[in-house]
């Protein structure tokens, strides 16, 4: 079995974000980046599936991490490999990529790699679009289960518990399939420096959108961005009555 895990590089959410001069994108200079936390959960799930399968004889699971983005993504790819992915595919592009282009590029990679399962984050925490997984399932004409909080296998089908606003929905799909992960699926493991050093030896397959025959033509254009006012009005209150009074004053009650 082969599991493909798309891992996007996103800015560290702990860092304050500033916009670039023409207010169309975040200024990422000097901002540390991480693997999109939902993708890290997806990768962790793939690793756990492999670890569980390992105890059953005869199964062999390969995990391939895919990253689309600039040269600088090397570091996050290394982290994915250190966590335990067997190898990586890096589609190098410096251009702006929307969810449609991203899913088209992923489809091209899938055509080449022929995985049995794709697990990816339900959304990336930078643009928060929540589209790439769904688009990819569409391109491939595969079944999809989004917002997974539990994944298990039953024969040649995969069972997914989906977190919806009103509760859990249990679905069962044939393979190959696309699963997108929610927050509560697992807690990703730590990639330590020794593991990252060892990961240097793992293969990374580098290509460009042209190599894959996909034109980078985004359908969504960002016109402008605005940051929320960071100004907060903090007041210390001495007791609950004062708190209620203040909240009423602010119109919150």
């Amino acid at each position, binding site marked *: 079995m082969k599991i493909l895990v798309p891992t996007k590089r996103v800015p*560290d959410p*702990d*860092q*304050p974000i500033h916009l670039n001069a023409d207010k169309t994108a975040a200024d990422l200079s*000097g901002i*540390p980046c*991480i693997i999109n936390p939902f993708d890290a959960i997806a990768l*962790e799930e793939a690793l756990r599936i492999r670890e569980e399968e390992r105890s059953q004889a005869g199964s062999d699971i390969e995990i391939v991490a895919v990253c689309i983005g600039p040269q600088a993504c090397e570091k996050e790819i290394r982290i994915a490999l*250190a*966590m*335990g992915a067997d190898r990586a595919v890096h589609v190098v592009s410096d251009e702006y990529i929307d969810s449609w282009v991203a899913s088209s590029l992923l489809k091209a990679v899938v055509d080449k790699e022929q995985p049995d399962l794709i697990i990816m984050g339900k959304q990336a925490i930078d643009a928060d679009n929540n589209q790439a997984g769904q688009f990819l399932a569409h391109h491939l004409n595969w079944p999809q289960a989004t917002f997974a909080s539990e994944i298990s296998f039953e024969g040649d089908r995969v069972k997914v518990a989906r977190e919806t606003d009103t509760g859990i929905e249990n679905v069962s799909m044939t393979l190959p399939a696309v699963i997108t992960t929610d927050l509560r699926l*697992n*807690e*990703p*493991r*730590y*990639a*330590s*420096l*020794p*593991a990252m*050093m*060892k990961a240097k030896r793992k293969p990374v397959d580098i290509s460009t959108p042209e190599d894959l025959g996909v034109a980078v033509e985004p359908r969504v254009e960002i016109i402008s961005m605005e940051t929320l006012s960071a100004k907060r009005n903090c007041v210390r209150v001495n007791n609950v009555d004062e708190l209620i009074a203040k909240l009423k004053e602010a119109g919150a009650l």
Partner: protein
Amino acid sequence: MEELSRELYGNIGVVSKILFYICAFTSMGIFAYGIFKRRKLWRIGKATGEKIDWVASAKALRTRVLSQKTVRSGVRKKKAGLFHTLMFFGFIILFIGTVLVAVEEYGHILFGIEGENLFHKGIYFAIYEVFLDTFGLLYTVGAAWFLVRMIQKGREDSVGYRKSDFFLVTALFVIGWSGYWLEGLRIIRENTAYPWLSYVGNAHAHLFQFLGVNEGNISAVHLSIWWFHGLLVFSFIASFPYTRLLHVIAGTYNLVLVRRKPGDMIPVTVEELEETGKVGVENVQDFSQRQLLSLDACVSCGRCTDACPATEAGKPLSPRDVVQDIRKHFNEVAPLVIDARKNDRDELEDEALAAAPNLHGDVISAETLWSCTTCNACHEVCPLDVSPVSIITDMRRFLIGEGALSGPPAAALQKVQRSGNPWGLPARDRFNWAEGLDVPTVQSNPGFEILYWIGCSATYDRRIQKVAHSVVKLLELAGVNYATLGPEERCTGEFARRMGDEFLFQESAENNIQVLKKYNVKSIITHCPHCLNSLNKDYPQFGGDYEVMHHSQYLSSLIKDDKLKVDSKAVIKEDGSITYHDPCYLARVNGIDSEPRHLIEAAAGDKALEEVARSGCESSCCGAGGGRMWFDDEPEERIGRTRVEELLETKAKTVAVSCPFCLTMMTDGIAAKTDKVQIKDISEILAEAIEETKKISSHTDNNKYKKI
């Protein structure tokens, strides 16, 4: 006057004597073979190549072994410590006494002297008899106490019970006692002059006479008791390497030749990682030879487990069980490793080894390893210098290398990796805590004499920032020429190292050492005992040598030098209104416990301090050390919960601390119980007292002014 003397080998015929020597050599042979075999097992471990410092070792032999201090220090098992000491000295003196008799015997043989004794006579012998009888008594009483304790406690209840223990403790006692039987019988047989000199033996002589021993049967009785005593001693000697008695050898080695200090950690090099492909301890043979030897030093007395804050909080960790479980596993696996190596089989693919239990998981669980706060209480109380902490941190290194950690603690490490602090907050905000305070930096004050190390807590945590504000205020008041690193400081890596992330620590350390070198930093003060410990003990391993002081030490010296003035009469606080919680890494690991008390005394008078039950080196962990700060525990599962109760029992209104982690943990813990108790850093208490002094003196000054 009758001649006082004794006959050597009196009543012992030639045949008995020959048999005696055969037995003696056999038992010594069994002893030597056993030690040789253990040594072979210890040597499956890694050789650390550490040199033995013989001068320091000689000193340690006196201060740590001969003084018997380590077994008696501490509040725990006081009685066992006392009786062990009695037994120890009794044993040593009896041993010397036996050696002297041997010298006499071989003196005769060597110099061909017949008849009279060389020196076992006259006044010397009189002193000898009294002396040996007394120490023999101490020994026998000590052994009797242990035997009674073992019988009372019952076998199952007795710590880490092994089948040989009962034989051992009984033998210890009977050997001592039967020595007196023999002495008594000798007195009867030889009709020794001044028998009352051997007062215990003489009492036994009377006893035997009462029991019917007389001139007719004395020879037979004496000979059989002599053989009984002798055989018991020989089996005792032979059993040394195979029973708990091994602690005499392994423990002495550990105490004298190794002398690992609390807080010390051995670095791993990148070369080692590349060569072996792993960090830390995966299998038992990855421990150092010294660590394996220390497993044999453990007598399973349980002082460590009694002192462990994780055990106290009900976590799945007992330091004694860690050591004893690994020892058991070691006994099982070590011969397999030796066999695999002898036959040139790959240890990792060896079938016999693969079938044996795994050190990780089967013997020691990850939960056990992660429960430790590395507070070092276990190592501190160990009479034989066994360090369960080093075993745990070495095993953690392997877990980290394998990525077997997730959730908040993993996130804290990741955040240090990318932002230089465990909260992952922006590095460029590192100096925001000093906003509006005009704090000098290495750039604004390049001629600084001392560097104030802020640490991540005071940088980002609003509560701890106030500690840094107090320290800055005091330094300014005393006119100290200091500076801070500003945004160039980053996490020391202390908690990363104790969590087993050696390379993240090394990266952090190298970074900081470079910055400290750039600004030619020689002396550092810090209010964080963890930063202190890292700068003090970890950094010299990587070329960072500084004079590092805790703020309590530095502030205390400022008061002594009269640079900080507190009107002690003006600020006196109510008796017992303040209690002080000693941080593990300050009091226990770095031995700093009097200076914080000096500050409290200066700030609140000498009666204000109410000591908590466990203080100084005996202090109990707040629960945040060794990376535990980053684990999410339910309040009722938190380590340090009982410590909070203990501090509240002092009825003090203020709990003084001197560590940011303790401040956070104690504030949380106490807030859940009461809102009547304040938790403050000692520098805050001092700054407030000085503020009060100033107010009072300006008051009086004003009054004076008005009068004029």
